């Protein structure tokens, strides 16, 4: 028997039923049918988007109270590619003392300018900072990759160094700190029983450059014997934080071995005698709150022995760990002391807070910016306003809402399909915009003069 009529019957009956169901769903609204609704594209329902977005209600804390100052305008935080200190008069540099230091360097003075770039996994692998460093050093001079931690979870991914190390390093950090050690700005402290680390700086293009390679470490009660490039070297580390120059020559690589578990070490640093340096302090999964745990005196010793001129504070993406969160007032409360602490410890540094970059979630089958992202960025801007810091908006700069979705689907792609992390290409773009904003801010200094 020929069963061809059954194909017709099945298809026509099923499609009719499906269509009726879709109409019914448009009227009544079955949320799970939304993504498979046959007429979703052509029939619009008046009730919101059909996806219920419930803000996390566990948090009832009051929003940050900010003082209204007549000469200031909070709304400036919304501008893309722009550094603001919220002054309504935007003709002066927002990062004034930093701009002056840049001017010194530009006018031929020999000095070091150090930028500490604090961030989460968004800057892991020297992302953003590698391009920012290259552009800054191209403009103002300087050679060297800056700070390198003893070990890292993903050493192969960092293109600016070749990083190898032994497996025995004991690593105390923001997540696991059983000995309650002082943790460095990188969030880590290392101890080596019979361990080594080798770093080759891949950023130095000028073969005549003299690169000073230093060890950053904590206090040692007695003089310590370490091994540098095969030679035994005795060092003294009297302060809670020390910067100990090891080798000062053309070499761009150094190998250091340490066999003293009582001696806390943080990392190595590569800097030429003069110029601008960008230190990458990335730590996965954190929000910046962690810096409140670091002892103030320890921070002040860092400021004395290895001073910073600009601190960039880029967090936020890890606050959006649930798709429907809309309230971040709790964050404002706990991060405020951390910002104050860093600002107080580094009084000679300008402080630049950046917004989070875009992050998207799957809302009923479609990737969109986190529903809470506008609120979060406003909170971040208020924190900057309140603490007198500068502010820079990565989110608006990269294109605002759903930018990360566009970046991930671009050819070639600019972001990973986790809709969180811009990749190296995307990070270079972000760095380029930030550099442009810094330069625009700096140029206001010359216009004033």
């Amino acid at each position: 028997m020929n069963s061809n009529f059954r194909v017709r019957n099945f298809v026509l009956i099923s499609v009719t039923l499906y269509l009726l169901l879709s109409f019914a769903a448009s009227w009544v609204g079955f949320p799970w049918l939304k993504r498979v609704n046959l007429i979703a594209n052509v029939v619009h329902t008046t009730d919101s988007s059909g996806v219920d977005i419930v803000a996390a209600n566990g948090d009832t804390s009051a929003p940050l109270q900010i003082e209204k100052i007549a000469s200031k305008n909070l709304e400036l935080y919304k501008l893309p590619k722009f550094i603001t200190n919220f002054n309504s008069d935007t003709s002066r540099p927002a990062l004034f003392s930093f701009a002056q230091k840049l001017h010194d360097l530009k006018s031929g003075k020999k000095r070091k300018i150090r930028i500490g770039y604090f961030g989460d996994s968004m800057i892991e692998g020297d992302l953003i900072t590698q391009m920012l460093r290259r552009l800054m050093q191209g403009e103002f001079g300087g050679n060297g990759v800056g700070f390198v931690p003893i070990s890292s979870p993903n050493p192969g991914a960092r293109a600016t160094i070749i990083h190898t190390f032994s497996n025995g390093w004991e690593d105390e950090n923001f997540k696991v700190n059983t000995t309650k050690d002082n943790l460095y700005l990188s969030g880590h402290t290392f101890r080596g029983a019979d361990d080594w680390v080798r770093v080759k700086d891949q950023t130095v293009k000028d073969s005549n450059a003299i690169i000073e390679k230093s060890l950053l470490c904590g206090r040692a009660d007695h003089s310590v014997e370490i091994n540098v490039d095969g030679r035994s070297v005795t060092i003294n580390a009297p302060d809670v934080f020390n910067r100990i120059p090891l080798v000062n020559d053309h070499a761009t690589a150094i190998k250091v071995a340490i066999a003293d578990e009582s001696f806390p070490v943080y990392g190595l640093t590569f800097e030429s005698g003069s110029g601008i340096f960008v230190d990458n302090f990335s730590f996965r999964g954190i929000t910046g709150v962690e810096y409140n745990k670091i002892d103030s005196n320890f921070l002040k010793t860092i400021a004395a022995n290895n001073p910073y001129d600009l601190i960039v504070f880029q967090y936020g993406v890890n606050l959006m760990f649930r798709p429907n969160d809309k309230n971040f007032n709790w964050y404002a409360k706990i991060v405020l002391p951390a910002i104050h602490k860093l600002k107080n410890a580094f009084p000679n540094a300008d402080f630049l807070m950046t917004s989070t970059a875009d992050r998207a979630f799957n809302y009923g089958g479609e990737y969109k910016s986190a529903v809470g992202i506008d609120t979060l960025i406003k909170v971040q801007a208020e924190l900057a306003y309140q603490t007198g810091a500068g502010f820079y908006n990565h989110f608006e700069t990269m294109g605002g809402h759903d930018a990360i979705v566009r970046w991930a689907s671009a050819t070639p792609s600019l972001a990973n399909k986790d809709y969180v992390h811009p990749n190296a290409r995307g990070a270079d773009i972000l760095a380029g915009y930030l550099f442009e904003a810094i330069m625009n801010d700096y140029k206001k200094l010359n216009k004033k003069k």
Partner: protein
Amino acid sequence: MPTFDLPAFLQEFVYDQHNPLLFNNGFFVFFFAAFIALYYAFRNNIKTRRYIFCAFSLYFFYKASGEFVALVIISAVVDFFLSNAIYRQTNKGKRTFLLILSIIFNLGMLFYFKYTNFFIAISNEMFHASFNPLNILLPVGISFYTFENLSYTIDVYRDELKPATKFSDYLLFLSFFPKLVMGPIVRAHDFLPQINEPYKITETDFAKGFFLIISGMFKKLVISDYLTLNYVNYIFDDPGRYTGLENLFAVYCYAAVIYCDFSGYSDVALGIARWLGFKIPVNFLSPYQSKNITEFWRRWHISLSSWLKDYLYIPLGGNRKGTVATYFFALLFFGGVFFSCSYLFNFSYIISASITAGLLLLFVLPAMIKKGKGGIPAGLNLLTTMLLGGFWHGASWNFIIWGALHGTALTIHKIWMLITGKAFAKINNRWWYNAIAIIITFHFVCFCWIFFKAGDLPTGMIMVKQIAFDFKGNVWSAFFNNYWPVLGMLALAAVLHAFPDTLADKVISSFTRIPLIIYILVFFAFVAIYGYFKSAEQVLPIYLQF
């Protein structure tokens, strides 16, 4: 109160590059219903029915790829005339000339659209030139219909096929919408005779077609899409951020994804064809059940491997002799191995040379064991076939490396059989021997998938490195707690794959006639499951090390 949006409604009928037509678009449901209604109404008017079919197929192609629909029509016209000219031509030289013309036309089109930018990049690298890559989009399905065109004219040239006399027959063969986008590659001698047959299907055809469509959709839309969005993309985009354990599971998941994707699409195509009275040969036969790599290639993308065998491997000389092309590609390959060892992996010349010589020895070994010269070109022909077969998948070194790995593995398997064939005769049918063989084969195939999927070679190497040197088995419980829905989906894929291929046929044939209501219920159950997983809360990536 819902409102009807007329402009949006009209826009639905036009090609949208952000939303090309696939089997899972809402639009396809209406498209298919309209098509079935017309196809059935004119089932006895063969000519009208054929025109309707052509029109719907071309419209499908337009909705899937916009103006590139013109390419299908142009290549149908060219190959239709060339094949008939070859058929009528009695002069051997002129026949060969016409065939070469057809090959140049088809491969030229494929090369232009698919490989131009790849070769621009290579010449930029080799000659330090800086040609700008061209803004060329890859027309959907071009790899498939180019091969169909080639096999068609070659078959006519070989006097194995009488060309289609009606243009619409040929156009339909080429544009047949169920297989247009992702295959399978259909052969004209299978397909052309079915076009003008009466529309007749049995109860089993209806049931089997339904099963193929629903199970294919399930594999593609539920399993593959879920694993891709909630796991595979995270890891493959940036493997260095994740532990070896996570990387290993990403490879397993990708093995499931590519199988479900590809075979799912093929199954839907086969199912729809079955409902319309066409039988297309099966394209996948539970490939991960293979006990060796040779068997894998008899079960994986069968329409491609048989095409490569008939139109590449055999013309190259097959397992008997070598041709100029055999040695040309072998030279390219061994040169490439040496070159990549020394420049890509920074090995010394001596080490690079010994690796190359070792590989060369592999391809000579079968001949040495059998004490006959014939084995050498056979191995090299197979290697060439796999290299070009890899390259067919995409214009990138990854696919060439993938093909080279498979080609080498096929030769190693051949040597293994020569060495152990007699010695292991007693054990090589035991269950535990088979189990070990399946596990080894599966893992080798997975290893190759790394290079198939990874964005570039360094990314693939990072994955291998993470799995080998940064495994971190101790993160298992945190891993499981976060990704259990993903692991559940992977387990489901594994269980479905483990069923014997004949099981579905057996179950279907045990029923004589299933009431329509059951089909409808199963269909809506599928829609509900699809809807559920499409809007299910996303599994977010986490960090397992700091």
